């Protein structure tokens, strides 16, 4: 296990190098003069030259790449062209916002998905099974941003149950400590604000969590069906255990092993997929941060934002891989 962990971490190195090459290339593969593209057609020659100078665009590629990696290793993610401030100092609130949203979306997806999958397997071929699987199939076929817009229309604008935009009441902002607003409100013991933060989370979490929920439900069902056929379950039944005990105590533990992998992988996917949900709900997360940067041609933010999301994605996948062998002692490396 230890050797596997080391090997798995070492395998990350080429991937990380490749990731930096791709994000580095984003600026350099722009057709034409990158500085000119960034500044727009109306920029003067002096402005273009100044930007080329400040971004080091006059150096040979290899030198530029070397400098880029050196900066990254020192924790320097560059300076935003729009806000003129260091990206590393302004990025945390965006990351925290995305983490908070992802956490609640996964909470929704796991709770509903796992339970729907269990009941579907338990009552295989019943009307519940049929409806749940149909719903799961529709769930994975739906454009997530469409679902988000429909929610906004129905639950925010027509019924007025939940707020349609943002993370908090803009007239009554939360004093941020960790930038996880639900947690921050708890720390302040400010329960009305906890409710407000949670209310803001409902619609985006459901929109973001629907696809993983559908995938988790299908995975749990098929995994449960397989486990329920195994010999040890028959033995448990033969001992006279009730159906509930068989399902939730004995079958679930083994059936959840592949499901946990899916949960981990989906968490990574959500972080990247959040860009659409965040755009629709004006959620100030990392996805929206990158998306806004595109329309402003703020290339340092695009580069660093994409690199950070990909980095978190890779780390989550690593943790999932390592967890997989930890929770299933039968897997030996």
């Amino acid at each position, binding site marked *: 296990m230890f050797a596997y962990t080391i090997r798995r971490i070492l395998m990350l190195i080429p991937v990380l190098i*490749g*990731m930096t090459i*791709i994000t580095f290339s984003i600026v350099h593969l722009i057709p034409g003069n990158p500085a000119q593209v960034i500044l727009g057609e109306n920029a003067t020659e002096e402005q273009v030259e100044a930007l080329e100078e400040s971004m080091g665009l006059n150096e040979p590629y290899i030198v530029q790449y070397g400098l880029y990696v050196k900066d990254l290793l020192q924790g320097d993610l560059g300076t935003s062209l729009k806000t003129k401030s260091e990206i590393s100092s302004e990025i945390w609130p965006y990351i925290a916002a995305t983490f908070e949203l992802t956490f609640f979306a996964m909470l929704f997806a796991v709770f509903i998905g796992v339970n729907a999958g269990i009941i579907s397997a338990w009552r295989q071929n019943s009307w519940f099974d049929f409806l749940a699987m149909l719903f799961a199939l529709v769930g994975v*076929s739906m454009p997530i*941003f469409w679902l988000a*817009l429909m929610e906004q*229309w129905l639950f925010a604008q027509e019924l007025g149950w939940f707020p349609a935009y943002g993370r908090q009441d803009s007239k009554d902002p939360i004093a941020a400590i960790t930038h996880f607003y639900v947690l921050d409100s708890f720390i302040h013991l400010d329960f009305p604000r906890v409710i407000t933060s949670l209310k803001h989370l409902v619609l985006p979490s459901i929109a973001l969590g629907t696809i993983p929920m559908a995938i988790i439900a299908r995975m749990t069902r098929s995994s449960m069906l397989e486990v329920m056929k195994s010999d040890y379950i028959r033995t448990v039944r033969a001992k006279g255990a009730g159906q509930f005990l068989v399902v939730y105590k004995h079958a679930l533990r083994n059936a959840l092993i592949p499901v946990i992998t899916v949960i981990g992988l989906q968490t990574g996917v959500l972080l990247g997929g959040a860009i*659409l949900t965040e*755009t629709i709900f004006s959620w100030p997360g990392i996805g929206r941060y990158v*998306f806004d940067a595109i329309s402003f041609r703020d290339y340092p933010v695009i580069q660093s934002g994409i690199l950070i999301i990909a980095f978190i994605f890779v780390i989550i996948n690593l943790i999932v891989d390592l967890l997989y062998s930890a929770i299933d002692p039968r897997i030996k490396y």
Partner: protein
Amino acid sequence: MVNVENKKQFSNKKLTNPSPNSPKPNSEEVKAISPWRDAMRQLRKNHFALAGFVIIVFFILLGLVAPLLTPFAFDEQDIINRLQPPSAEHWLGTDHLGRDIFTRIAYGARISLQVGFFAVTGALVVGSILGIVAGYFGRWIDMLISRIFDILLAFPSILLAIAVVAILGASLENALIAIAIINIPIFGRLVRSKVISLREEEYIMAAKAQGMKNGRIILHHILPNSTAPIIVQATLGFGTAILEAAALGFLGLGAQPPDPEWGKMLADARDFIQLAPWTLIVPGVAIMLVVLGFNLIGDGLRDALDPKMKN
């Protein structure tokens, strides 16, 4: 059904070839059915897959005969009649510029299906070539190609697509290229793992021992035996590609106005949700149905082609 067919053949043969030396009936009855015919037969029995097939055929026809179905052009504006609800004249209502939504959906089917087709074909061809080379030749070339796949898969797909569009500029063609690129490692890995398992098969060894060239082995033995998982993935990938194109269109990074791309139509509808909900509902349902269609066929194909899933 198998028996009926075979018996028919047998009785025909008996009529045309009444020689006393004709083979015994038993030897005719064990005639092998090709795995593909068996799969197709299973697929025909699968109601969900059939439903998916019907949905896709419907949208293909809708795209093909669009000009015959509607008197409007997809970019024909009629500001006075903007945001009209569905009526006899405008079956699915009009959008914020008074354009007929049914017309735009029908022409939009062309765009979505084409994006799906070209993005999947591109990813399939490049991914398969890389996968075969990596899996068949192994060693450093496998190492190199696999690491490239790892790197591409390290980015959440939509983000990588956004990065590609950020480099190339926003247009439908560039969105298509971006979607093809993000799908390359998915096909590549699939083909690679299949090739690696095939490489050790005895008939491949035999072909090598006979002195067959690598190219011939790949073309005649490896490729035909790796098609089943590729077909399943391509079908499912079709749906994903359409969703990704719609997402890029929605973000303004794909099709540009006045193209009737479904994702772009949803983006336009955003500001008029309360006034004209049909502008939001119709394109969303269209995307969902097409993707659902491909998912149903893909699931059906997987069940039919994967021997492990058979009863």
